[in-house]
């Protein structure tokens, strides 16, 4: 399948041929080139716009996500506040406990001096009794009589203090126990109960709606059958 002679001749003659294009041809090409250049610049602008919009979306997205985090944080802060409140509620109690303790301590301290006084009084009384050993029994009796009421008084004081302390301790213990139980209820049970109630209400709504629709459809079908 070698090129034939006439084909060689064809080739030579056709390759040497030149046809001058019309004068308008270059103008058209020029116009087309300028259009494509404009398009290219527009495309570049488009890309710029696309990039800008992408960046904008990113910014908006990040803003919204941050907002979400903030909204999440808000309940957390509320919870924290609640905790603080609880703490504030508890803390005074603890403070009161402390104060009570201090009171107890002070009372103990006061009771100790009382006992010291009492011992001292006893010793003084004993000394007196020793000193006045030879004195009359009446005096002794009086002394004993005197000492007995004093001791009684002291013991009474002691008993009152102890009772007060015990009572306060019991009250504090009861209060703390009650508060703890209250906190537990607030955290879990109440919320769960509320959620459960909400869900139940929604379920009930859905069920009631479905039932209503079902009933209407049922009635319509029944009526249609009867009509037919």
């Amino acid at each position, binding site marked *: *399948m070698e*090129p*034939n*002679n*006439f*084909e060689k*001749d*064809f*080739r030579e*003659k*056709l*390759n*040497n*041929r*030149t*046809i*001058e*294009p*019309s004068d308008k*041809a*270059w103008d*058209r*090409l*020029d116009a*087309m*080139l300028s259009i*494509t*250049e404009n398009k290219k610049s527009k495309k570049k602008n488009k890309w710029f716009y696309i990039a800008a919009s992408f960046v904008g979306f990113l910014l908006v997205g990040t803003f919204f996500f941050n907002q979400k985090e903030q909204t999440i944080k808000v309940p957390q802060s509320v919870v924290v506040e609640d905790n603080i409140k609880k703490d504030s509620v508890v803390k005074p109690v603890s403070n009161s406990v402390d104060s009570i303790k201090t009171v107890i301590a002070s009372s103990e301290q006061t009771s100790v001096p009382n006992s010291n006084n009492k011992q001292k009084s006893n010793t003084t009384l004993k000394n007196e009794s020793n000193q006045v050993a030879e004195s009359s029994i009446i005096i002794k009796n009086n002394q004993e009589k005197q000492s007995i009421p004093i001791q009684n008084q002291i013991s009474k004081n002691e008993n009152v203090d102890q009772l007060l302390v015990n009572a306060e301790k019991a009250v504090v213990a009861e209060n703390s126990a009650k508060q703890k139980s209250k906190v537990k209820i607030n955290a879990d049970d109440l919320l769960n109960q509320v959620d459960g109630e909400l869900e139940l209400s929604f379920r009930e709504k859905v069920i009631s709606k479905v039932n209503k629709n079902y009933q209407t459809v049922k009635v319509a079908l029944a009526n249609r059958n009867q009509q037919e």
Partner: protein
Amino acid sequence: MKIIHLHQEETEIIKLAVENNRQAQQQIYSRFSPKMLSVCRQYIKDIQLAEDVMITAFMKVFTSLNKFEHKGSFEGWIRRIMVNECISYLRVQKKVKFAEDEIYTEESFNAIDSQFTVEQIQLLIDALPDGYKMVFNLYAIEGYKHNEIAKMLGINEGTSKSQLSHARKILQTQITILKKQDNGTE
């Protein structure tokens, strides 16, 4: 030295044309457009349509000028773009169908020694059906091989060969008729 100088000049003009220098683009256009219009005219009978195709092909030349590696000849590169544009135009516009008969004869036409003018040759080629014309132009004039033509046109190599043999037969008969006419007039 002149050739080297010309080559340097060409590369500089191409560089400028890549940067959308309109003067450089016009220089390239005015240098190659007459030859390229001739190439397009081989494939497309209507000179106005051939010019349209040439302009769109030149658009492709300038838009893909940055892809031109300064290895082969610049004219050859432009010519390939022209030929491809003509083929795609014919395929889109006229929906050329190639009869895939794959029957071809290897006859020699060496006996025929044509003494035709370019216009006569063009008329002979114009008379060919588009499918034959395309394969004949690509094979005989552009010098593509059958496997290359098959790839370009999306046909089998055998179809390309059969199209060429059909084109040659038609041309042979036409040439003999013309010669007889010439002899008759002379």
